[in-house]
């Protein structure tokens, strides 16, 4: 993405890793209270049994303890931070009681709010206790710093034109319990994100390039490849065409980062139970309605192996399942409310891991003439009108199947979503995966997307005047 001088200076001053995380001595995290999984399960079972005794036969309990560790290194230093959140949600179906006190006393107090005076627990069959979740090796601060230092120094071809570089390793370790009659579930999800940032000046404008990988699993399960590092470097060093962009209707190839932002935003805005309350959305996104070309098939798959937004059971305590949203261009499903920000916020209808079916064309053969849009910045989809505005860092011109060498900064694609998706005529056989962590009231929402590049047609225009 490209930033103006003020933005990058602010980034260097405020967003630098050492400022975000502190530098020099590695910090010790707040010792996580020793949490015995069996003990927590016992508290939750007791809570559900007491709620049953009070007549709440649909009672459920969800408990979470979440520990986040981030390590970062930039040109000025390295540092580590820790944060912790606990929570319990007791649900009767029509009422919920939530507390940040994950202890026997805290849960009993929550039961008293829902059920009044404590009474003898009912006899409830919870089924078999789940198998113990495998222990997760918790890395010491110095081990995280070692990894992030290695990541930061791996690229041997860094140019002196790179004026700022940073590496980040973010690990979120969540331990969840969900208990209801006939159901006793437990999962531990370790979400990892590794990223590098490179900044270089291009005339009066600095260009910031970031490459990231996000997954669920072991910290060392994936690495940024040499190609990823080279991409970050080359995007930062790319020289932009100084002439004005030819605003107008063009054939475009949307790179996976743009397709990911578009799909994620569109699903959250249009294909959820809450969005369906809007008459405009209900009409446009009715089941069976064609909203895209037959090439477009989209599913929400929380069970995808290693998905950053994936899970084994949702925040209602139901086992995860695949929801098909768009089948060959037709709407076939919407997302029900089943996720909570931070696992303790209000239930929301939000995607977990979206997957768009790949095509059969090589990515570099998608477009004969037109513009390749690269590095998505943001996507806006208006639920009431279908208006879509997609901002991209770069547009690369192609003519006669070859790149002309012209590369324009800060371009936006504007128009309406349905015509844009209906004009999709090819999808690449290669896919890419992106993971995102959004924070709402200090509670995180994790989601991820696997998508190919797409060829379509739309109106492009420059976001800024040439510098």
């Amino acid at each position, binding site marked *: 993405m490209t930033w*103006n001088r*003020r*933005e990058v*200076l*602010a980034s260097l*001053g*405020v967003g630098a890793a050492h*400022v975000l*995380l*502190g*530098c*020099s*001595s590695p*910090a*010790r*995290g*707040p*010792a996580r*209270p020793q949490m015995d999984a069996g003990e927590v399960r016992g508290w939750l079972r007791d809570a559900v049994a007491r709620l049953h005794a009070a007549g709440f036969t649909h009672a459920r309990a969800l408990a979470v303890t979440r520990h986040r560790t981030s390590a970062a290194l930039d040109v000025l230093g390295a*540092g580590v*931070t*820790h*944060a*912790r*959140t*606990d*929570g319990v949600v007791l649900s009767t179906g*029509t*009422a*919920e*009681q*939530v*507390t*940040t*006190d*994950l*202890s026997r006393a*805290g849960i009993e*107090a*929550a039961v008293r*709010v829902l059920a009044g005076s404590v009474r003898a627990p009912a006899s409830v069959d919870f089924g078999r206790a789940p198998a113990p979740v495998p222990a997760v090796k918790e890395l010491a601060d110095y081990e995280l710093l070692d990894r992030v230092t290695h990541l930061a120094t791996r690229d041997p071809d860094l140019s002196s034109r790179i004026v700022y570089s940073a590496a980040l390793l973010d690990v979120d370790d969540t331990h969840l319990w969900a208990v209801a009659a006939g159901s006793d579930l437990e999962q531990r999800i370790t979400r990892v994100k590794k990223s590098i940032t490179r900044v270089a000046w291009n005339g009066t404008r600095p260009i910031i390039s970031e490459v990231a990988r996000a997954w669920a699993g072991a910290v060392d399960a994936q690495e940024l490849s040499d190609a990823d590092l080279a991409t970050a470097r080359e995007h930062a060093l790319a020289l932009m065409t100084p002439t004005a962009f030819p605003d107008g209707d063009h054939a475009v190839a949307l790179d996976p980062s743009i397709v990911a932002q578009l799909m994620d935003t569109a699903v959250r805005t249009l294909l959820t139970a809450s969005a369906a*309350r*809007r*008459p*405009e959305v209900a*009409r446009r996104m009715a089941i069976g309605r064609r909203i895209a070309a037959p090439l477009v098939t989209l599913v929400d798959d929380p069970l995808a192996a290693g998905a950053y937004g994936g899970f084994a059971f949702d925040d209602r305590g139901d086992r995860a399942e695949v929801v098909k949203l768009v089948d060959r261009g037709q709407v076939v499903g919407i997302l029900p409310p089943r996720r909570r920000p931070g696992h303790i916020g*209000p*239930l929301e209808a939000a995607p977990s891991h979206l997957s768009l079916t790949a095509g059969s064309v090589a990515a570099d053969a998608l477009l004969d003439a037109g513009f390749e849009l690269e590095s998505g910045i943001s996507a*806006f989809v*208006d*639920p*009431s*009108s279908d*208006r879509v*505005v997609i901002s991209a860092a770069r547009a690369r011109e192609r003519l006669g199947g070859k790149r002309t060498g012209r590369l324009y900064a800060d371009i936006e694609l*504007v128009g309406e979503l349905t015509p844009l998706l209906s004009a999709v005529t090819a999808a690449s056989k290669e896919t890419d995966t992106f993971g995102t962590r959004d924070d709402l009231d*200090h509670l995180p929402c994790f989601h991820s997307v696997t998508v190919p590049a797409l060829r379509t047609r739309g109106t492009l225009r420059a976001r800024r005047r040439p510098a």
Partner: protein
Amino acid sequence: MIDARSLARALIRRGASAWTIVERDQHIATLDAELTRSEQRTRWYLTVDVDMPAGRGTGHLRLDASAGSADAIADQAISLAHTGMGPAWTSPPPAAPARVDLDDGSLRDPVAAVKRALPAHAGVFATVTAMRELVSVTTHAGFHTTWPATLIRVDALVTSADRSLAITRASRTLDGLAIDAAIEDAYKDLALLATARAPVAGPCTLVLHTEAMLHGGLGVWQAFVPQADAATERQGLTRYREHAPIVEGANTAAEPLTIESDGALPYGLESAPLGDEGEAVRRFPLVERGMAAGLALSPREAALRGREPNGGVRNLVVAAGTWDGALPGADAIEVRRLRSLTIDRYTGEASLEIALGLAQGVPFTGGSVRIDLIASLARSRRSTGVITRGAYQGPTIASLGATVLLP
């Protein structure tokens, strides 16, 4: 269990130079058509300063939990402070908290309050959230103060047969919510939307009505908040500097712009006696008759400048104008609602996507506008009528001058 006293003892034992512990005990109730939700939450926010020969380090720590060890948390905060070393400065002496009432008696029971506030109109899908919190602030100087505060928020989707509008209102008091009036306005705009045409692109004069002007909270006035950030100003990244006109000619405009931050506004959405670092909240000007007049000063920024901290930008109070609301010309477009508003925090340049506007009284929907908000608002005409909504108190309508409507 974590408690403020053991945290304070742990910080003193570890030799912290200065510290502030903010504890928020919150009772939050949420109600919609299907579910009642009640939440008991304890939030901790620690600020710890450590003096070293190299300077002073500051660590901030946030924790949403009740169980834990005060010693471990103090270790973490001290360790963070050691890693965030900067120039030396001295904590300002404690000042009296702002005297402001934030506790509405009708919201003391959040569960009962959300039931009273839930709109009962047909075609309205609403979620009401009410909170009552007890905020306790303890500082290294032995200063301890506690205050109760209430908050209520309604998120509603107002629907007609084939259209919808989303509205949000938040207030410290039940009476200040005015949700029924907001729903009534939304119904009127839905009727206009039913007959709205496509926009006609071209030059125009932009007039913003309340709902568009305050889109998403402070709306277009949000452009002035990052300009008052002291750290950004120190780095030379703000668009204008203190005691200079915010744009050329702003101080000689027909109606020079005046904006204040008032954190002691009774029941103001952003009002508070003290800030999160224990500093007293004070009223201060951001812009005075077109001149940049003040900055949001944290204890650190204030100490480095030899001034008093003021608790940061809180509620924005914009001085009313003299405009009677008569349209400035035949090319005027009155924007009633926006789909989105994006503001560049450093330049104040904005992109407005229009949801509903009126051109010569004829409704239209769609189109976008790119505008330099700081320049336009500095030269704007503002209404004599004043409204208080959320963290804003000021004119109900503003004319931002000439621009171009894009398709």
